[in-house]
């Protein structure tokens, strides 16, 4: 499973979006799509569990979780993995 697929799976489980995460554009605003602040905490914890890391405090901001692309960038930054492409 790719990083993007994992992120979309976690969003489907935790984000309580009004839209199917599989159909959301990677730059689409997840908060506009119905993700609450509390749901974003669940997304954060699930990402940490899945990728085995902990987000540093410097990344605990709304913009880190506002889109699939932003989440992917955050995950790749913390885990040190190269980005897609």
């Amino acid at each position, binding site marked *: 499973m790719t990083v993007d697929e994992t992120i979309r799976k976690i969003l489907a489980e935790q984000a309580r979006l009004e839209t199917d995460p599989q159909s959301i554009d990677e730059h689409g605003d997840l908060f506009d799509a119905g993700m609450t*602040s*509390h749901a974003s*905490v669940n997304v954060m*914890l*699930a990402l940490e569990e899945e990728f085995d890391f902990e987000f540093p405090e410097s990344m*605990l*901001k709304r913009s880190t979780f506002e889109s699939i692309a932003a989440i992917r960038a955050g995950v790749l930054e913390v885990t040190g993995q190269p980005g897609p492409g």
Partner: protein
Amino acid sequence: MSTGQGAPDLRVGIDLVRVSEVGASVGRFGTRYVERIFTDHELECCRTGRGVDRSPSFEASLAARFAAKEAALKVLRPVGPRPAWRDLEVRRDGAGRTGLRLSGRAAVLAERAGLESLTVHLTHQEPLSAAVAVGVCHPGGDPHDRSRTGTECPTRTGGGER
């Protein structure tokens, strides 16, 4: 409260949390969730027993505290990184009155905003918990120069939890 620089800036933050969502998070993530978000004091105030409590009152009280943290963030208006959740602590005194203790980045944001007082009210009734935070800020920012660079922001404990 008089500043000589105009009227204080009154900021109000409000937030609403569905209790069942907090319950689901406790069930899914357990201590990782509660210990990442809530302080020992907050957990002590909410618990009816030891360990991870799954009672409805525990989850409703946690939801109210999460709402209080969010409401306070709306008063602090962070730009960039947010404070850690535990930097915004709901305190409850022996009489049941609630207040907010700010530390870390939350205290820094309060200082930058010139926050003179911060009041919080919590309420919960299934299926929702809610909180309102009211902050009074000194016009133009920090009213105490740099002398208040500490770990605690002034709180007013006139609020309560119903």
